[in-house]
């Protein structure tokens, strides 16, 4: 303020020149205040010539009305002359004449009431002189200061207060305490001749005094801040006049109160809201809380009343202060650790709101400053209230969103922020507040949306700040078989904070929007990554909205929401206010569908004929341009967001966002998944791999697998030598190679070696004991039977024990067939899937073991006994009680038949009701070519179904069917032992024993199945049950 010194000097000069006061005189100080007030807070620079002319015309009219025609004529005449003065003609400052006139008007006070008589004589001269005087004086003056003192309305006054407010000092003396007549002589400022004149006689009355006093105080704007300490009014020359002052000074409270004009306070309030720092009226304490400065009052109110009147601003000021500090902190992104872009976007969203608020405040300030209409503090409060309410809500959300421990991950921060915003939008009742919050939410979501956009578009999950809810597990490569399940991790951290407190987790709110999207999004991401890895040409991103082919996701979403919120609800609201929600939902749904349909048709026509390679080529080149475009688009989107208006309560924001995002994402997913499935099926033969695994592990390729297992079984029966993983692998590969020469190499067989002799011993005895205790009465017999058969038994078991492999009780080695599916196929044929397949394989192998064993018992092997039979018949007719050999043979044959039919029944049943439907279902599934996701899950589902159908029961230990199979295998072994051995030595008891055992097994299975069928709905078992019930053996032999 270099000019202030000059100002002061000139002011003093002016006063002494005009009024002749001494400098330390009370009147001098008052005059100085008045002059400075008019200098600093003048309204005459940006002058409206029409307004001034109107005022002068009005004044003239008023004179006429009051019958002072002469005066009116004179005024007009003088004005005219003044304006016509040549000085102004070429003056470089335009409208100078008007500025001067407006100043004069400003200074004048009720011109009609100025006494006529004296003025009448003086008047003809004075205005002229005065005009000249003023003109010379003021024009030069203003010319001088103008460059420095451009106080146009555009320049925010807060700049001033910013500079000075820290000093926070102001004149303590209320202005115009003492009456001084000279200052209040209105229309004509005292001129040279008048200075010597005594005070005007018209101001003698008390009323006039008061009016003059109040006029002065109204017209004087004190600078209550700044370096210039307001001087105490010096003691008057008249001792009597000092009594009141002294009295006031002694009374304390009153002494400290600085009276501010309402106008000043209003401006202070506005400025403070523009820039929430400590100011003259509002001061902060260490905690950042604002309070009204003590000792400030409005002239019309008591200090307490004015304080309570102003207190409503304090809290918002504190909020604003916090928010501003937050925005300031996040203006530039930190690098280490990286600030989540979501937070930055949120800050910029806040900034947008702040700008709007600022804009509003500026408007208010202009209105106040112009003083063209009456503005009061109450009016200001009314104007501010909606903003302050919004501010309070914003602050609440802000605090909630950031109420996190400092070590919270960016992801948590981002999620929580979005969640709180989303929650608050849903919770807010006011349409305006909802609008603000939605815009803020949209701003904040932009980071997520742009992540999604780049993910959807280019297939790369660019999330530098690690804020996105999904993140890529880098340890799982695209070539990993776990890729599909494990590649993307949905990180949903339950922050401790919320677990401790019993509040609802705000993250849930945003999850409402995101959760339906995430599955699709991840599948899109995975599809894209896979496609890229598979070397497929990129799938062109098709337009989301018609006409906006290169729109980003953000823009589309924003446009959609804008379109939905801004236009249609008004009508429906007007029509059915109570049904508005339904109506809107319907209309939005309808719109979504409509736009989706429209888009798809547009797309089909636009891109239908495009060569994908060509498209890709075109798509590649303008990459750089698009970056720039997006750069440009940023503000464009922000402005789009800002254009969204208020949101009525009826509209669910969650629904709005979901419906905006979902169709887009879903469509993209469809495009990609179709492509992916096609690529996988056509180029990478997913179906073939699937088929190969089925062919081998489910024995769909019966001939090939027949060769494999019959070879295996015959080797086992020959003593099990030479069975090891390598030879089995070679055998299997040899067999499969006939069917799938290219894929046989992926198979390998691993054989579980015998763990421990003891362990196996316990294995063979222990489980049967346990089983017999728990469920199976039949096992008891079995065990008994086994003991009696031990002698015959031992031979076989010794054989198996001597070999190295561990046999299951069904006489099947524990084989694990591994299919090393080449890369894309291993997404479907993962290890767990193959494990399940292996279980089924072992199941069907044990079935095959039984049927195969029985089928290989040929009648021809018995026929040699016919020769002996002949001899026997001739030689020994005295066989005694022993049954004829022929009959024994016959019974063996029939027992074989029974067992064979029984095992075949089981075998065929599972082939027909489990394996075949599985095959059909999988074929159908692949034929339908749904998304890879569906293929994987459905395939797994089908596999689970077939597993539970075949193995019947989740318990690993006790599978009744396996028990039956084990038993049947044991019977088969016994039978073949008899069959291939010395039949002549077989006694009837042994055969009968076997027959009884078989009958028990059969009945046991029938019982089990009947119970199962009656207890649970298992249609696939009904047929088997009925058949087995009908074929319960009648082998009871007398």
């Amino acid at each position, binding site marked *: 303020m270099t000019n202030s010194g000059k100002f002061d000097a000139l002011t003093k000069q002016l006063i002494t020149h005009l009024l002749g006061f001494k400098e330390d005189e009370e009147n001098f100080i008052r005059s100085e205040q008045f002059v400075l007030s008019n200098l600093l807070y003048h309204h005459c620079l940006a002058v409206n010539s029409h307004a001034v002319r109107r005022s002068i015309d009005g004044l003239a009219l008023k004179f006429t009305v009051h019958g002072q025609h002469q005066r009116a004529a004179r005024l007009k005449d003088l004005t005219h002359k003044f304006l016509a003065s040549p000085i102004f003609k070429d003056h470089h400052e335009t409208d100078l004449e008007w500025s001067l006139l407006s100043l004069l008007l400003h200074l004048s006070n009720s011109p009609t009431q100025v006494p006529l008589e004296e003025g009448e004589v003086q008047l003809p001269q004075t205005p002229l002189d005065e005009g000249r005087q003023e003109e010379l004086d003021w024009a030069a003056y203003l010319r001088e200061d103008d460059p420095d003192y451009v106080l146009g309305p555009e320049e925010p006054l807060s700049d001033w207060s910013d500079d000075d407010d820290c000093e926070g000092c102001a004149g303590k003396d209320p202005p115009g305490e003492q009456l001084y007549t000279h200052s209040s002589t209105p229309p004509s400022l005292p001129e040279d001749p008048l200075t010597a004149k005594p005070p005007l006689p018209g101001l003698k009355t008390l009323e006039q005094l008061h009016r003059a006093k109040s006029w002065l105080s109204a017209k004087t704007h004190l600078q209550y801040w700044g370096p210039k300490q307001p001087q105490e009014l010096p003691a008057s020359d008249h001792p009597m006049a000092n009594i009141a002052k002294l009295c006031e000074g002694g009374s304390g409270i009153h002494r400290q109160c600085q009276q501010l004009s309402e106008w000043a306070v209003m401006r202070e309030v506005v400025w403070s809201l523009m820039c929430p720092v400590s100011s003259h009226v509002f001061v902060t304490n260490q905690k950042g809380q604002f309070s009204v400065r003590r000792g400030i009052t409005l002239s019309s109110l008591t200090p307490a009343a004015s304080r309570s009147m102003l207190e409503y601003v304090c809290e918002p000021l504190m909020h604003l202060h916090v928010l501003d500090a937050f925005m300031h902190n996040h203006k530039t992104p930190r690098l280490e650790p990286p600030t989540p872009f979501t937070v930055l976007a949120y800050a910029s969203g806040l900034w947008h709101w702040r700008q709007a608020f600022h804009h509003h405040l500026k408007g208010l300030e202009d209105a106040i400053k112009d003083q063209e209409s009456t503005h009061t503090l109450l009016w200001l409060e009314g104007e501010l209230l909606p903003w302050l309410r919004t501010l309070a809500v914003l602050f609440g959300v802000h605090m909630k969103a950031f109420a996190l421990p400092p070590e919270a991950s960016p992801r948590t921060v981002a999620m929580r922020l979005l969640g709180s915003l989303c929650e608050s939008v849903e919770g807010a009742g006011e349409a305006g507040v909802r609008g603000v919050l939605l815009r803020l939410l949209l701003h904040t979501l932009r980071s997520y949306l742009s992540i999604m956009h780049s993910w959807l578009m280019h297939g790369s999950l660019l999330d530098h700040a690690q804020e996105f809810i999904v993140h890529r597990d880098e340890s799982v490569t695209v070539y990993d078989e776990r890729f599909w399940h494990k590649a993307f991790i949905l990180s949903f951290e339950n922050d401790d904070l919320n677990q401790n407190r019993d509040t609802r987790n705000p993250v849930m709110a945003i999850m409402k929007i995101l959760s339906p999207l995430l599955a699709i999004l991840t599948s899109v991401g995975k599809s894209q990554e896979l496609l890229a890895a598979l070397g497929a040409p990129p799938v062109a991103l098709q337009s989301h909205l018609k006409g906006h082919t290169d729109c980003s996701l953000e823009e589309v979403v924003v446009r959609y929401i804008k379109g939905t919120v801004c236009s249609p609800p008004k009508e429906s609201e007007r029509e059915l206010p109570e049904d508005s929600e339904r109506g809107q939902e319907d209309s939005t749904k309808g719109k979504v569908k409509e736009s989706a349909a429209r888009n798809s048709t547009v797309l089909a026509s636009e891109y239908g004929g495009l060569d994908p390679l060509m498209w890709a080529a075109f798509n590649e080149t303008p990459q750089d341009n698009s970056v720039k475009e997006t750069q440009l688009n940023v503000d464009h989107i922000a402005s789009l967001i800002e254009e969204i208006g208020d949101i009525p309560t009826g509209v669910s924001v969650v629904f709005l966002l979901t419906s905006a995002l979902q169709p887009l994402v879903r469509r993209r997913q469809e495009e990609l998944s179709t492509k992916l499935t096609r690529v996988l099926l056509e180029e990478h033969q997913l179906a073939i791999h699937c088929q190969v695994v089925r062919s081998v592990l*489910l*024995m*769909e*390729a*019966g*001939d*090939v697998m*027949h*060769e494999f297992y*019959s070879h295996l079984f015959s080797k086992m029966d020959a003593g099990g030598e030479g069975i090891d993983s390598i030879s089995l692998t070679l055998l299997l590969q040899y067999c499969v190679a*006939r*069917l799938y020469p290219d894929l046989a190499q992926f198979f390998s067989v691993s054989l579980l070696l015998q763990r421990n002799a003891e362990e196996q011993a316990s294995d063979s005895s222990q489980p049967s004991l346990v089983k017999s205790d728990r469920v199976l009465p039949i096992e008891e017999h079995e065990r008994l039977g086994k003991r009696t058969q031990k002698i015959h038994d031992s031979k076989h078991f010794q054989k198996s024990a001597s070999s190295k492999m561990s046999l299951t009780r069904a006489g099947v080695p524990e084989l694990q067939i591994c299919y090393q599916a080449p890369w894309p196929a291993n997404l479907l044929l993962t290890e767990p899937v193959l494990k399940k397949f292996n279980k089924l394989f072992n199941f069907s192998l044990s079935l095959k073991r039984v*049927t195969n064993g*029985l*089928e*290989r018992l*040929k*009648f*021809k092997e*018995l*026929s040699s006994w*016919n*020769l002996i*039979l*002949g001899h026997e*018949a001739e030689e020994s007719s005295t066989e005694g009680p022993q*049954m*004829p050999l*022929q*009959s*024994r*043979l*016959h*019974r063996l*044959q*029939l027992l074989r*038949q*029974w067992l*064979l*039919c*029984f095992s*075949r*029944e089981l075998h*065929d049943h599972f*082939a*027909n*009701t489990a394996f*075949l*439907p599985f095959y*059909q279902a999988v074929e159908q599934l692949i034929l339908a070519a749904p998304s890879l996701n569906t293929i994987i899950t459905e395939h797994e589902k089908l596999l689970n179904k077939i597993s539970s159908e075949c193995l019947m029961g989740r318990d690993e230990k006790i599978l009744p069917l396996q028990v039956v199979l084990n038993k049947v295998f044991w019977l088969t072994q016994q039978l073949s032992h008899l069959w291939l051995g010395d039949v002549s030595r077989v006694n009837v008891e042994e055969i009968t024993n076997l027959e009884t055992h078989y009958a028990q097994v059969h009945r046991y299975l029938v019982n089990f199945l009947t119970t199962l069928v009656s207890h649970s709905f298992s249609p696939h078992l*009904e*047929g088997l049950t*009925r*058949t087995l019930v*009908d*074929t319960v*053996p*009648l*082998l009871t*032999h007398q």
Partner: protein
Amino acid sequence: MEYLLKGRWKIMPRRAQTGKDVFFYQADDEHYIPRSVLLDLEPRVIHTIMNSPYAKLYNPENIYMSKQGGGAGNNWAAGFSQGERIYDEVFDIIDREADGSDSLEGFVLCHSIAGGTGSGLGSYILERLNDRFPKKLVQTYSVFPNQDEISDVVVQPYNSLLTLKRLTQSADCVVVLDNTALNRIASDRLHITNPTFSQINSLVSNIMSVSTATLRYPSYMNNDLIGLIAPLIPTPRLHFLMTGFTPLTTDQEVASVRKTTVLDVMRRLLQPKNMMVSTPLDRNTQHCYISILNIIQGEVDPTQVHKSLQRIRERKMAQFIPWGPASIQVALSKKSPYIQSAHRVSGLMLANHTNISALFERTLKQYDKLRKREAFLEQFRKENMFAESLDELDQSREVVQLLVDEYVAATNPDYLSWGLKQGPMET
């Protein structure tokens, strides 16, 4: 006499099906050659084949015609003894084919039992195959003579009886193709007034092709011959199988397409009129099924199978043996994609029915009539085998009688203890 496999699927592009190796192998030019040997003692039939479009299909080395070309003259003994003479040449061919097979499971013999070559040479080959490949299966498709026509072969009962003995003792499975029934089916069911050989043959080839479908189109079950026939045959001698097929159509009758379902097909298969064996109604014995295997082809929903089986069981449409597992096995098989069929589902039944003994009884009866008068035996006596005695005929009669007895015994619940009452079996 032919050792021929007749399927309709032989001209297939490569890689179309997986199971073609069962009956075919690939030549160097990748065309498929059937693993078949064609044998005859007179050139007529083979010449017909060699003049047909199929001429180039067969390996010419596998076609054997007797040098004399005189045939067997409808004499079993002549056929049998000629077989002894040409043994080396014939088995050279058979050995070569057997060696050329990766995993030889058995032989399929197609012959008739009434004539001279089919019965005599067929019997000889059957016995020798059994000696030479004791572990291999031998399945025959045996054509039984038409009883409705007065045969031009008067010694037909002798021939049949002698062949039946070999079929009983040396074959593992005999699929009986009864000319009587085939002709009746052609005239009654297909409305052909005078069925030609080719029409009848197409019926037969149809049956053969379907009955091997599970071998040729491998699936979960019945992928080997033994697996196919083992559950059907409870004891060594009861191995004569009847067949039935539905829906029956000829090329002329494509217009009448019926709706076919699994239940429909299975029900039709149980009707005697669809059986390819003519069996008179025997009121004295309660004949019944020993076992049934239905091979269903076409678009089949597996769940339908069990529903249909249940329905059949509920209505007791099939009478089963009282002593054994009474169940209908069902094998679902693929259909050749190269044969267009108007029907969605078709089915073949392979059944072991005690009723078939009627066929043998008929032969026995006719044999007894002839034998009583010692008619036409001089032709047999010309051969070494019968020069000294006619014991062979008597033995054959005994074997066939035993077979008939066992079939009858199988209708009784106490079949299990059948061996107790019977005297020891003789060879």
